[in-house]
Each structure stands twice: as structure tokens, then as C-alpha cells.
């Protein structure tokens, strides 16, 4: 029979390296470029800024890793975030007229945010599975719906959190624990939880199996619809967490909140090595991808070398290059 027994896995491991190292190499390259461009780039203040900032997209992208590795896609995350933020702010402002226990207000706001995000994810999941409609279309539709709703709630303007509430809520974005900003800690915890769930639980295996081959998953006693719905709910919960961190930062929500976050989140996931067609997800890569995207923005803010108008072009080139490093080269290798 087969005598692959002599197999020495030397070759495959080498090509695997590129997949792992591709995004990391891009990250390091960007760090080096940044350090050359500005001496303050490697200051701990700047590095913490970058980490803190990447928390939003990073947390959302962790959820997107689940959705994408289950073979789906969610275009609605940006407007979902805006809508969640809007409702949270309205609720907290309203409660201020009812009670003056501010911490209760903040906690209620956070709980409501978690509920709305997860509920929105549930809705996406149900429309996709029960409705039998492509994820792309469902989430394109809900993207428009949530965006409209927040515009409607804000009456075309901006919903702003009352400053009394904001005072207590501020530390969730601006505070730190042992020198680490709270958003960074939450990002790290979300990444850790995402990694554990995706790689070390039955559910995580099921998610990736559904993405790899839905029929096989169904024949293996996996309730594929439920797995998909849960993946969208995780995405919703991640959006909620990102929003909970976001609200104290700017204290407001409007029709423009979260525009294009979906593309950034998807880009982070794919730069990180997850396959868009599903079946395979890697949280560590996603975190790297989110950091790369934030770094590009940061570096562009550091220099006058390039016309402002060309920022988008630089981003585009780096995104393509980062994925080429990982896919194109590793393909050549094998």
C-alpha cells in the first residue's frame, strides 16, 4: 500500500513558513520604514497609539475571521457599529433623566450595545440560513438598513453622549491598566478568546469545516445553519465590543460613523492569511493584518513625502504587496 512513511516533511514546512511569515515580514518592514521616517515613531507613546487604534478594526476583524472561515462575508459591520453606538448613546442620555446613578447608566449602555450587536448578527445569520439568500446580498442590504436607521435616529446630525455619562465612561477608551491602554487589553483578550474558540473548541472546528465543505459538515452531524448563525453572532458581538470601546473615544455617532470599516476588517482578515473562500481561519494573522493597516495610516501621517492625495494609492499598493508576499510567493515555492 502507500509507503509515504519515508516522508520527510521538510518541503511543506518551508512553504508553510512563508504563509506565517508573509504578514509578519510586511509588519516588520513597515516598522523599519516608520523608524526611518521619524525618530519618534518607535516611542512607546506612538506604539501604544497604534495598538490602541487598531483595537476597533482588530476586534471587528476577529469576528470577521469566524464569518469568513465559515464561508460567509459580512458587509454590514461598519453600519452595525454606527447603529449600535447610536442606540447606546440615545439610551444612556435618556436614562440620565430617569436615574442619576451614572455607573448604572454606563453598564446598561454597555449591555444594550452587546445585545444590539449580537442581535444584529443573529438577524444577518437567520436571513442567510433560513432565507437562503447570499451573505453578500443580505449584509449589503442590512448595511444600508443600519446606516439609514442611525441617520434617522440622529435626525441627520450627530448623536452625542451627555458629558456626565462620558466622564465615567471615558476610561474604557482612555484609561490604562498597568500601563496598557484598556482597548489594547480588550483587543488582546478578544484575540485570545477568538484564537481559543477557533482553534481549540468543537465549535471552531465546525466553523472551519462548514467553510471547507458544507455537505461533509452536514453528514458529520454538524448543524451547519446553526454554526453559521453563531458565526454571524460572534461577528455581531465583536462589533458590539468594538463599539463599546469606540463610544467613549468620540462620544458620538452619526451617519458617517464606521463607513468602510467592513472593507478594512475583511482586508485585515485576508492579509492575515485567512482564505476568502472559507475553510481556514487564523486569528493571529488577523491581528497582524489589523496592525499592518493601522501602521500604514500612522506612517502616512508621519511624513510629507507623499502627497495627501496619494494616501489611498500607498495603502492599495501595500495591501496587494502584503498578500503577494504571502500567497504569491508561497505558491511559487510549492
Amino acid at each position, binding site marked *: *500500500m*502507500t*509507503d*509515504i*512513511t*519515508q*516522508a*520527510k*516533511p*521538510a*518541503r*511543506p514546512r518551508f512553504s508553510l513558513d512563508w504563509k506565517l511569515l508573509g504578514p509578519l515580514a510586511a509588519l516588520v518592514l513597515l516598522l523599519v520604514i516608520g523608524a526611518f521616517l521619524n525618530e519618534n515613531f518607535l516611542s512607546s507613546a506612538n506604539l501604544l497609539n497604534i495598538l490602541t487604534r487598531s483595537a476597533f478594526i482588530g476586534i471587528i476583524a476577529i469576528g470577521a475571521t469566524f464569518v469568513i472561515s465559515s464561508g460567509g462575508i459580512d458587509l454590514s459591520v461598519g453600519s452595525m457599529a454606527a447603529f449600535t453606538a447610536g442606540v447606546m448613546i440615545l439610551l444612556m442620555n435618556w436614562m440620565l433623566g430617569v436615574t442619576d446613578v451614572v455607573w448604572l447608566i454606563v453598564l446598561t449602555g454597555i449591555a444594550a450595545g452587546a445585545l444590539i450587536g449580537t442581535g444584529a448578527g443573529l438577524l444577518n445569520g437567520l436571513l442567510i440560513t433560513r432565507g437562503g439568500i447570499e451573505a453578500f446580498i443580505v449584509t449589503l442590504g442590512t448595511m444600508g438598513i443600519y446606516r439609514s436607521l442611525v441617520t434617522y435616529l440622529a435626525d441627520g446630525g450627530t448623536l452625542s453622549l451627555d458629558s456626565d455619562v462620558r466622564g465615567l465612561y471615558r476610561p474604557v477608551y482612555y484609561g490604562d491598566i498597568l500601563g496598557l491602554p484598556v482597548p489594547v487589553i480588550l483587543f488582546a483578550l478578544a484575540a485570545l478568546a477568538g484564537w*481559543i474558540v477557533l482553534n*481549540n*473548541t*468543537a465549535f471552531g*472546528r*465546525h466553523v472551519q*469545516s462548514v467553510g*471547507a*465543505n458544507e*455537505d*461533509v*459538515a*452536514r*453528514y*458529520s*452531524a*454538524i*448543524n451547519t445553519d446553526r454554526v453559521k448563525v453563531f458565526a454571524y453572532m460572534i461577528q455581531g458581538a465583536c462589533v458590539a465590543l468594538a463599539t463599546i470601546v469606540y463610544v467613549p473615544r468620540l462620544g458620538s455617532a452619526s451617519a458617517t460613523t464606521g463607513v468602510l470599516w467592513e472593507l478594512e476588517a475583511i482586508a485585515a482578515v485576508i492579509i492575515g492569511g485567512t482564505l476568502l473562500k472559507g*475553510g*481556514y481561519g487564523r486569528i493571529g494573522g488577523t491581528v497582524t493584518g489589523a496592525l499592518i493597516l493601522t501602521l500604514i495610516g500612522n506612517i502616512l501621517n508621519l511624513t510629507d513625502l507623499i502627497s495627501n492625495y496619494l494616501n489611498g494609492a500607498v495603502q492599495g499598493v501595500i495591501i496587494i504587496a502584503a498578500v503577494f508576499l504571502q500567497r504569491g510567493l508561497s505558491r511559487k515555492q510549492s
Partner: protein
Amino acid sequence: MNAPVDREPLLAGQGLRKSYGPVEVLHGVDFDVRPGEVHALLGENGAGKSTLVKILSGFVAPSAGTLTFDGAPITFPTMRAAEEAGIVLIHQEFNLAELRTVEENIFLGRELRRGLFLDKAAMRAEARRLLDELHCMAPETARVADLPVADKQMVEIAKAMSRKARILFLDEPTAVLTKAETATLFTLIRRLKAEGVGIVFISHKLDEVEEIADRITVLRDGELVETVPAHGVSPDDMARMMVGRELTDFYPHIPAPGPDAETLLAVESLAAPGVRDASFTLRRGEVLGFAGLQGAGRTAVMEALIGLHPATGGRISLRGQDVRFTDVAQSKAARIAYLTKDRKGKGLLLGNDLVWNFSLFSLEKFAKPLIDRGAERAAFDAAAARVDLRAASPSLTAGSLSGGNQQKLLLAKVLETDPEIIIIDEPTRGIDVGAKSQIYGFIAELASQGRGVIVLSSELPEIIGLSHRVTVMQSGRTTGCLEGDAINEEDIMRLASGLAARSAA
């Protein structure tokens, strides 16, 4: 029949080697095809048959070795180059675009045109003609996805025929065909042979090889064993050449369950998608065969039973209790397991590793709630040893296993849940003689442990050799049940074609 053997080879390979990564799977094989002969290629699963014909047909490049065509050295830089040389390969796995129609698939890549545009009428007519010749009734305008497997195979054959081959490689074309369909194919092969086409035929059904082959080449572990004229070589000889030892006890003796054996499962008048009226029972320690023509509804009954397509009527009683499952998780919890006949499409995640596939059906055992990888790996090693799964490393992908090892992996996967009722659909499709008898051995062992085993098969000898009782289906109905000495090919066929009246349930 011996005449072609003396002719000059049309296509020949010398010293062909092939490595996948660091693993060499073909170790310098010589092989040739002569015009007007049927050259059978035999070997166990994973011996390298498919690899060899893929190299010969320009489908993959050899790592070493040379090809000569019409006496001159040749390489095939693209698939088109091979096609233009008149070399056609029918792959072991279906190579059809499922979303497209039969006619489109047949003419894919070499569409007939009138000027710039497609000549659809001509292609439809030609497709119809080819299918009729194969006695295939599939409409040429149907989507391939909607066809039963046998028709898909016929579409593959029609596609190959339409390509006016000088050399035709057939990699296990008969695995999914009935006797009658195989006979049609053989008529066609004989005609092509008469026209001077060189044919390479791969099959694990050794009686077919005896019937059609002019020469036989046997591979073992990627090495050439020998090439001999087929005349006078019996299936037993072939098996011995393949395995390198004598094969005994092909069908194991499985003790029949005692008269007081508990009835595990009783199904009455089941109705479901593809099933009109099915009734049968299964007892502990029993092997129940399910026979019928293709599309008779055997698979549909089992898929309804386990909850994939919930039943719409009738009764299912499990260990005396009425049940109706609406998803597979419920039937799994009730200790029923089903092994699909579609290993690649529905059974295994071809891109994932062996351990991942192995534990997919029984993950909750290892997830508490985090997956205990040590326990998972240990269970895999134990199960791999139990079913004699041969693979270099558990980190290989399931897709790189040979058919027999894939079937064993699938068996290990479902057995890990310790089911009491095991339903195996086409247990030996595409599986070599050695692995076949191993799988029969597992079935016997499962029955002797007091489990109930249902075997769905299109191979009558297999059904007869294994089963204590045989339920026969026709057009979505169970038409009868044969028991003990009453089990014979003729009666099964009568029930399967609806000729005999329903005798028992």
C-alpha cells in the same frame, strides 16, 4: 485477440518517476500502449495507477523519465498539446462542471462553432447521439449536478468519445456502473479497439479485467511488478500479483444472530424524498444487505432515517421506541452512524488533515470544552491501527490518501462514536481486493460485537457474501426481503426490477 500485442507502441514511457514533495510515489516505471489493444493496469489502492496514467496523458509532468509518442520523444507543455495528440483521460474523480449542462460539459474546451458563434444545435445533436450510444437517458440539457452518479460517469465517457482519441485512458470508469452499463461500455471499448485506438483500462473489478484486457500490467507500491499477456490469467492470479501473497477467505463467515436477538430497528412504510414506501427490520448482530438498481432509493431511505432529509411519513422504531430524527446529530446521539458512498464530496474534508477528519464526527468526546489534542491524537492512533489505516503522518491531507485508506478513515471516523447501528453505503467502491477483504473483516467484527450493520451495495456478490438478510428496493419501495439460503442473484434481480411480488418484509 493477440494480434495487437505485436504492434509498435503508440505511446511509451520509460523510467517514469513522480514525487509529491519529498515523497516518491512512482519509482521508475516502464509502460506502453499499442494501437488496438486494451491494456489493463492493476494494483492496490495507492499503487500509483492514477499517477501513471496522469503522466502518460500529459496531465502531470513526471519528475523523471521520458515519453515517446509514435516513436519520437514528446513532452506535453499544456493539456491542449496532449489533446491535440489524441490522448484522452477519463479521470477517476469526476471532472465535470456541475453547474453546467451535459452538452456543455461534453464539448467543454472544444466547442463546435459556426463562424464566431457556437453551433448549439449541432452540439446538442452530437451529445444526444453519444449518450444514446451509451444507452444513457440523461437529457443533454440537464445540469450535471442533477444527474445520478452513473449518468455522470456516462457523460465523462461521452466527453472522451467526442474527442476522437487515439489513446484512451479509463481510470476506474466502472466503479459506479451497473453490470448492464458496464456491458454497454465494453461494447464501445471493443469498437474503439477495432478502430485502432489504444486503450488503458484501470479497474478493481478483476472479472471485468479478465473479460476485456489484452495485456495486464501490475503495479505495487509505485514499482512495476510485471506486464503479461492477459490470455489465461485468472482473477485469482491477478489478485496474487497485486498483493504479492495468496488471498484467502474473501467473504468472512459471520455467525447469524440468534432467534432471540433484539430488534434494533424497525421501519414501517417510510416515506421521504426519493422514498415512497420502505419497510425493514434490523437485529443485533445482523448484517442486512440493501440491494436494488441505481436510483432505487436505498441511499434516500438511509438519509431519511438519519435525519438528513426528514421522513414525511411512516414509522421508525428504534429499540422499541418511536423516533423521527430531523438532523444527523440526533441520530448520532441515538447511536446510528452512516458512511456515505460519496467519500470525496460528503464524507471527508479533502483539504484537512487526517486527525481533523477523524474526530469531526465525535468532537464532543474530546472537547471538554477545549479540545484535548493529546487524547484526540491517541484516539486517532488507536483507531488507525484498528482499521489498518496506512499513512505516513496524521498531518497529511485526506485528499492525498488512496481510495482504500480514505474508506478506512471514514470508517474510523464514524466508529469513534461507538454506534450500535452502522450503515455503510457502497463499502468497497473503488477499493482494491486486499482492502476489500479487510473491510469485510471489519463488518464481520462489528456484527459479532452485537451491533447491527446495514450494507448498501450495487455489487451483488458482495451483498450475497456478507448479508444474513437482503432487503430489495425498486422505485422508492422495498419490494421484498430474502433470508439465508434464499438469497441468490436471480431473486434479487427479480425483486429489484419489480418482477416478483412482495414476499416478506
